[in-house]
């Protein structure tokens, strides 16, 4: 009896490591993105593309070999186009615009150290195994290469989540997962560091989008391919009365005086460098040459 217990435990552990939980149905996501490409909603993509240009403008590097890693929309790649810079666009679906190749971001098809810049606009929020993806991206970067990515974060669409849950509870006595879990800003720096990135930085850009009503918001989400792709989610569409009740709750709780509703979107920005000896590093503990007391003044005599 005891022996079986012992042989089972390590096996379960290995399974947990090699197969991260499948939260997102990636094949379904590709179909959603293909549908979205027909009537795209791209204001977020353009906002993020402008930010990419701004954020890179502070770094005086040519970035001659850049990789667009899985951005659904080509806006970022178009905005970053520059003379002397080659941008390879790896798109996440067969129907994405101006693709050079199609990839699943969880399985990078790139050889080691081929790029000096990898960027990704609004794609990594749909990845099941973010640490695994970071490790693969780190390998595809040449030493001193930069990863810069924007993804949708945990404080996004909280109002929608609240209203759908409450409406479903009222009519169906329980809620099914509809709005997916997001990564928290606080976790990102640590994840980048674990993947071997130097100088990891994460920050967030809070955006409030206003809509006429819940249905206009849902139409935009569809246009971004962002409707429910949870592997464990309910595939059955929400009933009409639940949707109408959710729209009513949204209007009551999250609208401006002019009647338009607010949707919060949090864009998480993350960056990290492939390690290189030229980069700044903390000094070794105990290697200081000047005592701290000489900087602070000797307070022991007061």
């Amino acid at each position: 009896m005891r022996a079986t217990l012992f042989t089972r435990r390590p096996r379960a552990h290995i399974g947990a490591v090699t197969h991260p939980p499948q939260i997102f149905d990636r094949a379904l996501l590709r179909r959603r993105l293909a549908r979205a490409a027909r009537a795209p909603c791209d204001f977020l993509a353009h906002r993020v593309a402008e930010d990419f240009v701004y954020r890179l403008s502070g770094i005086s590097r040519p970035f001659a070999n850049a990789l667009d890693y899985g951005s659904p929309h080509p806006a970022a790649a178009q905005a970053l186009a520059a003379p002397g810079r080659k941008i390879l666009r790896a798109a996440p679906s067969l129907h994405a615009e101006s693709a050079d190749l199609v990839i699943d971001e969880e399985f990078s098809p790139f050889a080691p150290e081929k790029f000096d810049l990898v960027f990704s606009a609004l794609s990594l929020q749909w990845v099941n195994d973010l640490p695994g993806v970071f490790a693969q991206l780190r390998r595809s970067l040449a030493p001193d290469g930069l990863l810069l990515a924007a993804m949708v974060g945990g404080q996004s669409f909280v109002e929608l989540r609240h209203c759908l849950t409450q409406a479903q509870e009222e009519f169906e006595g329980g809620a099914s997962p509809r709005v997916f879990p997001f990564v928290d800003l606080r976790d990102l720096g640590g994840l980048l560091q674990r993947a071997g990135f130097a100088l990891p930085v994460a920050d967030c850009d809070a955006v409030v989008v206003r809509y006429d009503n819940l249905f206009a918001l849902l139409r935009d989400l569809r246009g971004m391919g962002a409707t429910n792709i949870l592997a464990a989610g309910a595939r059955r569409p929400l009933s009409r009365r639940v949707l109408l009740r959710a729209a009513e709750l949204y209007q009551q709780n999250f609208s401006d005086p002019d009647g338009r509703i607010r949707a919060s979107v949090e864009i998480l920005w993350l960056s990290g460098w492939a390690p290189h000896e030229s980069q700044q590093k903390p000094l070794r503990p105990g290697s200081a040459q000047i005592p701290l007391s000489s900087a602070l003044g000797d307070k022991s005599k007061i």
Partner: protein
Amino acid sequence: MTEERKSVAAAAGIDPRLLEILVCPLTKTVLRYDAERNELVSLAARLAYPIRDGIPIMLPEEARRLEDDAA
């Protein structure tokens, strides 16, 4: 990509510079370009990734499984 660029790429099969930086997404091993079938073959994964309109589709679900005698 414009239609014109697409047709040029399709005629050439695959950009050799692109082939140089690609590996099998599952096994990270080298890929062999099969000009006849217009596929990228991963012997290690026993999969052939299709190239459609000059665009390599590096999705395992879209790849053709190699039979034992082929490749």
